[in-house]
């Protein structure tokens, strides 16, 4: 009897310990290391950073990397540009995604499942290849320019690819499903009688939307915006493939510092700063999800 109970608790411990240890080692520990290296000095060595404890055993902390990030205008501009780009893409996704999610949630069940499938489908196709598809559309002799020239709107191809506008399009395109799905989830759950009730009490269709639908979709709006904004901030592939050589967004700068300049401590500092920038939206998202789950119960 006692041994059986012991076996049960043993199982419990294994179930807890295995994923726990895995995450401690491969998720939490790396952040410690990144923090540590961001406080080191770059040296010409393998690996290219100074040890945390110098020869005398004293702790060596070097905040120059962070100071540099604040001093150098380039980095400030990069951060600002990343925020603006991500925000623009988020707003575009919201404007486009809300009516789409609304339309799907209000269609009849069979069409609805097909429409949802078509929203999810691109998600299963390689992200890289979807971004790549835009290269073919936007290029100087791509589909869009060929079409415009065929229409006679322009004689010379318009430069679209390798501009900031292309990055914006790429971001909006890639992250649109992330906006639609949480919005759909809240709109679908909403009691349609509420809108009918508002109209019954004298609200027009538009008034009923702003009085009822919009406030009740808040959780979905927040979740959708965060799910677009957060990854768009750190995006690397889209600015690289669709943006020009000077399209400096944080993700790309981080990558370049690391591989091109081999400045590991600075790259780590850039990563830490990105994380600091994202703490607010991440916390907003998690709070929102927790509240939403509570309400669902």
């Amino acid at each position, binding site marked *: 009897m006692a041994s059986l109970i012991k076996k049960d608790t043993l199982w419990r411990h294994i179930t807890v310990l295995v994923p726990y240890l895995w995450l401690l080692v491969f998720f939490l520990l790396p952040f410690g290391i990144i923090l540590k290296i961001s406080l080191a000095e770059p040296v010409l060595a393998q690996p290219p950073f100074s040890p945390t404890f110098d020869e005398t055993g004293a702790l060596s902390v070097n905040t120059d990397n962070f100071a540099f990030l604040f001093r150098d205008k380039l980095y400030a501009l990069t951060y600002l540009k990343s925020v603006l780009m991500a925000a623009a893409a988020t707003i575009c996704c919201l404007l486009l995604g809300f009516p789409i999610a609304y339309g799907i949630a209000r269609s009849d069940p069979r069409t609805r499942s097909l429409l949802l499938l078509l929203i999810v489908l691109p998600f299963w196709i390689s992200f890289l290849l979807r971004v790549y598809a835009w290269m073919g559309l936007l290029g100087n002799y791509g589909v869009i320019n060929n079409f415009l020239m065929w229409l006679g709107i322009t004689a010379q191809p318009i430069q679209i690819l390798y501009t900031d506008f292309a990055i914006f399009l790429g971001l909006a395109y890639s992250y649109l499903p992330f906006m639609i799905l949480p919005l759909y989830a809240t709109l679908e759950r909403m009691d349609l*009688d509420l809108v*009918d*009730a508002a*109209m*019954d009490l*004298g*609200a027009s269709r538009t008034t009923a939307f702003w009085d009822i639908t919009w406030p009740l979709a808040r959780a979905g709006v927040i979740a959708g915006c965060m799910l677009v904004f957060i990854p768009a901030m750190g995006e690397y592939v889209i600015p690289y493939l669709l943006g020009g050589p000077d399209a400096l967004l944080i993700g790309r700068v981080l990558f370049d510092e690391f591989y091109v300049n081999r400045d590991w401590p600075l790259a780590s500092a850039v990563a830490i700063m990105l994380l600091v920038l994202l703490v607010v939206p991440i916390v907003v998202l998690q709070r929102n999800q927790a509240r939403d789950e509570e309400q669902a119960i």
Partner: protein
Amino acid sequence: MSSSRNPCFIRIRGVSKLFGDFVAIDDVSLDIAQGELFSILGGSGCGKTTLLRILAGFEQPTRGRVEIDGVDVTDIPAYDRPVNMMFQSYAIFPHMSVEKNISYGLRKDKVGSAEIAQRVDEVIELVQLGDFRKRDPDQLSGGQRQRVALARALIKRPKVLLLDEPLAALDKKLREHTQFELMNIQHELGITFVVVTHDQEEAMTLSTRIAVMNKGRLLQVGEPREIYEYPETRFVADFIGTINTFEGRVSSVDEQHIQVNCETAGGDLMAFNEHELKSGDKVCIAVRPEKIFISRDPPENSEDIRIRGTVDDLGYLGNLSLYRVRLESGKVILVSQQNRQRSAKRSIEWEEQIWVSWRPRSSIVLVN
């Protein structure tokens, strides 16, 4: 209250509603008088809710017109109709307090804030929600939510109040209590109530008149007593209360009576000839369980219909006793008897040979 009540306050003329190929409502015409508490009764999917939604303005009829108080409202959208609705789900706005919910309709009509405050007070008084006006809807019980929904619909002083299964979400005790409250409020305000329900008991107690619907068609309209005692179709007879039926053919006709030969009754059953039937017509004789007497000895009145049977099963319900009686033909019928005398011993036992009998007047003749 006005003495001259308009008998055609709501006038529904030839209304049909199709969803694709599906006929939700099939050519319904109906008049509802001012100040009535009118029920539309039917099973799920019978079209009763669709009819209510057409009255509210949420659905456009495919054919037909709807008039309210002399005005053709068929093309008027929901938000401009002098009609308000209480939803089955109550549809309380979850992000507004009780007070905000109730005043919503007046705010949309741009009523002045002093008048809003006064009317909110009135209606909160009427439904006795005084202590809850600042609460959020998720802090309310089912009965309180029902009151908020009612208050919110009443505050606009609609000409017609539509109620979609108003009591379905409440438990039994509360339902009975609320039923009478609804009737009182209706009586006090004199507003025309149109109630949709699947619960025949609720319809019987609440309503001045009942319309029974099935498969999109209107089967019968009448006062509760008419619907119960004089059902016109087999469906209505079955749907309202319990009933025993005997299929048969008319064997003979005289001035007043008909004899119907029913195999399952083991002979002829007598009934009044209300439908001008001829010999050989296929009919169905129906009898309510409480109209049947049960006795050990053969009943004396020779006019009565008398059949021998065995008690298969019996149940004591306090005020009533229910018997399942197997007739000699093998058919089982239901009989209910009031327990008039206080007595510890049952007079009739299981497996006992008994007689069942009823007056010819109690036989309902249903023509298919």
